């Protein structure tokens, strides 16, 4: 059995009549890190819910490793790393307890941990570099540490398909890099990671596949083919913030057209000598002239 994740013409509608996802199709093979990219309300979380069997498609089907979602659930194939906002961080459980929850599906009726379960939990904690924190209550961790704990739980579950919901919000750069390198290791083991993210700039850094959604799957395929300016503007409409270098106050740019896109925030750009640069040159001709003058004097 080769690992795969496939949705064909999936339509999901909620009881109140709202169709969150229509005719969505994509396919992921083994050893993939796929970015799930789209605006809020584009159906990213609905897609996750469908993959976990929380909502049933009204038409179309989802196949996981050749079987149904229900079969995948029984085999604990799909692991979920929740968004930080979804977790009750005041809950009285330790890091160790949370990672052990990944093993529950593998335990007997009374959920008594075997030596094997404990070994796997220790290993998973070591893998994400959280062994020293195993006695901490989960609320006492930093944003990045919290993410790593839930990633360790997915490992302990031995989930072959890992769904990560916004793994980089509230995470510092060092942790982001360590999470990315862990995801690469997992990819090399043949697992499939589907990462929902707002962080467009990080996508080319660690994903090899992109699924663009906007109430349906607009495009799905290898990063270079799908993560194009044209596709992104289809996915985001006018939502993206843009910074065109050739329209900006930046002088002496290399003459090529460089455009910077971000989802959430406007970029802050500093030019040569630490000058603050503005998005539009028009209306600031005075400033540009002044800087040119200073440049000439030097």
């Amino acid at each position: 059995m080769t690992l795969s994740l496939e949705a064909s013409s999936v339509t999901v509608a909620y009881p109140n009549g709202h169709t969150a996802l229509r005719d969505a199709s994509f396919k992921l093979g083994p050893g993939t890190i796929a970015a799930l990219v789209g605006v809020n309300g584009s159906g990213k979380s609905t897609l996750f819910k469908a993959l976990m069997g929380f909502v049933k498609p009204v038409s179309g089907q989802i196949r996981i490793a050749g079987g149904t979602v229900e079969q995948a659930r029984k085999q604990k194939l799909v692991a979920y790393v929740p968004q930080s906002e979804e977790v009750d961080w005041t809950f009285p459980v330790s890091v160790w307890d949370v990672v052990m929850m990944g093993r529950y599906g593998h335990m007997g009726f009374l959920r008594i941990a075997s030596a094997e379960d404990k070994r796997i939990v220790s290993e998973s904690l070591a893998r994400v570099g959280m062994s020293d924190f195993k006695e901490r209550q989960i609320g006492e961790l930093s944003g990045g540490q919290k993410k790593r704990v839930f990633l360790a739980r997915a490992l302990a579950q031995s989930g072959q398909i890992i769904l990560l919901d916004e793994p980089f919000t509230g995470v510092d750069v060092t942790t982001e890099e360590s999470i990315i390198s862990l995801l690469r290791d997992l990819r090399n083991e043949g697992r499939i990671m589907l990462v929902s993210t707002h962080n467009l700039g990080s996508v080319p850094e660690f994903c090899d596949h992109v699924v663009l959604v906007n109430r349906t799957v607009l495009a799905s395929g290898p990063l270079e083919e799908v993560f194009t300016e044209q596709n992104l503007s289809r996915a985001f409409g006018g939502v993206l913030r843009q910074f065109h270098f050739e329209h900006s106050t930046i002088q002496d740019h290399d003459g090529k057209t460089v455009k910077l896109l971000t989802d959430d925030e406007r970029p802050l750009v500093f030019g040569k000598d630490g000058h603050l640069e503005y998005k539009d040159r028009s209306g600031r001709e005075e400033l540009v002239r002044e800087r040119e003058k200073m440049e000439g004097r030097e």
Partner: protein
Amino acid sequence: MSWLAPFQYPFMIEALLVSALVGIVCAVFSCYLVLKGWSLMGDAISHAVLPGIVLAYLCGLPLAVGAFAAGFVCAMSIGWIKSSTRIKEDTVMGIVFTGMFALGLVLFTKVQTDAHLNHILFGNILGIERDDLIQVIVASVVTLAVILLLRKDLMLFCFDPAHARAIGLSTVALHYLLLALLSGAIVASMQAVGILLVVAMLVTPGCTARLLTDRFDRMLLLAVASSVLASSLGVYASFFLNGSTGACIVLAQSLVFLVAFLLRGRRAAQKA
């Protein structure tokens, strides 16, 4: 009067034992209720059992059966109204439980029963009858056994239902199980403190324990300890105060909570 005077009376000994048993059941359950954020649901269901009790009298069924059924009707109606309208859940609860409680009161005045309304509303642990005692014990033992057997699944359900589902647990079944256990705990503690104050038994021990620890297993133990202590204290004090035993138990629960709260304040101050 001697400090040991209450122990000369068999009904006092019995009341102490029953209140301790009820205290254990409620304490264990309260940990889940508090962490799940279902305190208001506990309040709603405990009021809503009244019409069920009256109807059970009418049909000659055990009270527990009626209470259980009414609790379920209440929970179902709340879920149904909430999912088919835009009204917020706490508002729906307010409407449903007051409506059912009022229905119970009206039914009670229309139907001749040999029960005393006061005993149902405020408990009657000192004058508990043989049949009622058996019901209390059965409801307590069954509820406690189910919770302890499934304590990890229930904890996971409270903490992270998405993960519970992902590893193959049925979250729908766990949801209804938790509701059923809530009804069971209410039936068990109804005789001790009455349906008006049951919610204190179902919320306070868990909160008290939560203040003192941030580990779940320790929280269970501390909740049981605080609840048994408060129940016994309440029964014991009511002998001297000659007051409502149920109210004394609940008052003792509040006092234990207050002590835990003050202790925690001091601990937090030392940490800082």
